[in-house]
């Protein structure tokens, strides 16, 4: 079991599944649970199929060095995207992801369509649930495949990495389903932004490490340097959050001064 891979996949999946769960819940409440769960399970099966086929193809046909370079670059892209979003949300420049608001929005949309709860399978409900789980899960599948296949030292270990990542993602999925079934409401208490931030740090760290290795970089202290990179990115992120908070305060102050000037002119 590769614990770093499993935990990264777990955290990434938790974020995405919480977002997907909100839509599944809306469909379940407004139409029926049969359609909602059918769509969700069909999407989960599609994702499992994607991970199995793409994962096996990567493990079998792509050399480890080339894989690490390509995966490193992709993980840096992914990681920076996640890190940027979470830093903007921490600093208040961007609003936090509000599951309650998203739930209400989708609820209103479905009700506006005139959909009512019925016992039969409702194609629109199945499709909506399927689309939500598939789209949110696709990013997780990508992380599971790339992260899982690259963490290995040898070709034989590559499939173990994918298995570990898949286990991490599956545990997150089961946990979200259990929590959702218990609460029967949008999972607003899950600290989505913190999870996103941690995953962003992990993806950027591993991405930098593997991309560097792909270019023949000999990192000091070998694998221990991953921790050094993580701490470095963590510190840099905290500094950036503080800086953005200051920038936001300054912008708000300027806006207030401008408003006051306009009022004074009137």
């Amino acid at each position: 079991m590769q614990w770093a891979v499993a935990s990264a996949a777990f955290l990434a999946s938790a974020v995405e599944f919480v977002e997907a769960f909100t839509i599944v819940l809306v469909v379940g409440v407004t139409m029926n649970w049969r359609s909602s769960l059918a769509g969700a399970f069909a999407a989960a099966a599609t994702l499992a199929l994607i991970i199995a086929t793409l994962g096996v193809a990567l493990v079998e046909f792509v050399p480890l060095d080339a894989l690490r370079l390509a995966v490193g670059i992709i993980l840096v892209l992914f990681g920076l995207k996640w890190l940027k979003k979470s830093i903007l949300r921490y600093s208040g420049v961007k609003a936090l992801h509000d599951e309650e608001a998203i739930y209400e929005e989708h609820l209103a949309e479905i009700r506006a369509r005139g959909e009512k709860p019925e016992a039969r399978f409702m194609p629109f409900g199945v499709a909506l649930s399927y689309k939500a789980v598939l789209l949110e899960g696709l990013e997780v599948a990508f992380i599971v495949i790339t992260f899982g296949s690259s963490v290995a030292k040898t070709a034989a270990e590559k499939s173990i990495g994918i298995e570990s990542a898949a286990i991490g993602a599956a545990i997150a999925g089961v946990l979200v389903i259990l929590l959702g079934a218990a609460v029967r409401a949008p999972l607003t208490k899950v600290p989505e932004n913190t999870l996103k931030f941690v995953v962003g740090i992990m993806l950027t760290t591993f991405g930098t490490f593997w991309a560097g290795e792909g270019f023949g970089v000999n990192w000091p202290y070998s694998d221990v340097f991953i921790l050094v990179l993580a701490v470095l990115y963590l510190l840099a992120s905290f500094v950036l959050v503080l800086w953005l908070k200051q920038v936001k305060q300054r912008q708000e102050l300027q806006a207030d001064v401008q408003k006051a000037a306009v009022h004074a002119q009137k």
Partner: protein
Amino acid sequence: MCKKLPFTRRNRRPWLKVIKAIYNFIVGDMVILVGVIITMAILALLNYVPGLTTLKVASGVILVIAVLVILLTTLSRETRAK
């Protein structure tokens, strides 16, 4: 009557949509994408151009600094947009 689009435009649109979807899925931010591409190009040059191989030892430092600069640049662009 509906005017037909030129052949290239008619066929380009679905591909553009696919490319845009992939771009949004993987990164969705031009600063990050361009920054990472430039960084990788520099690292590739340091690795494969014989005259520059003496600078290869700095590849790791360049990569880490580039990642931090990209993050800083994309965040500062967001604040300016606000």
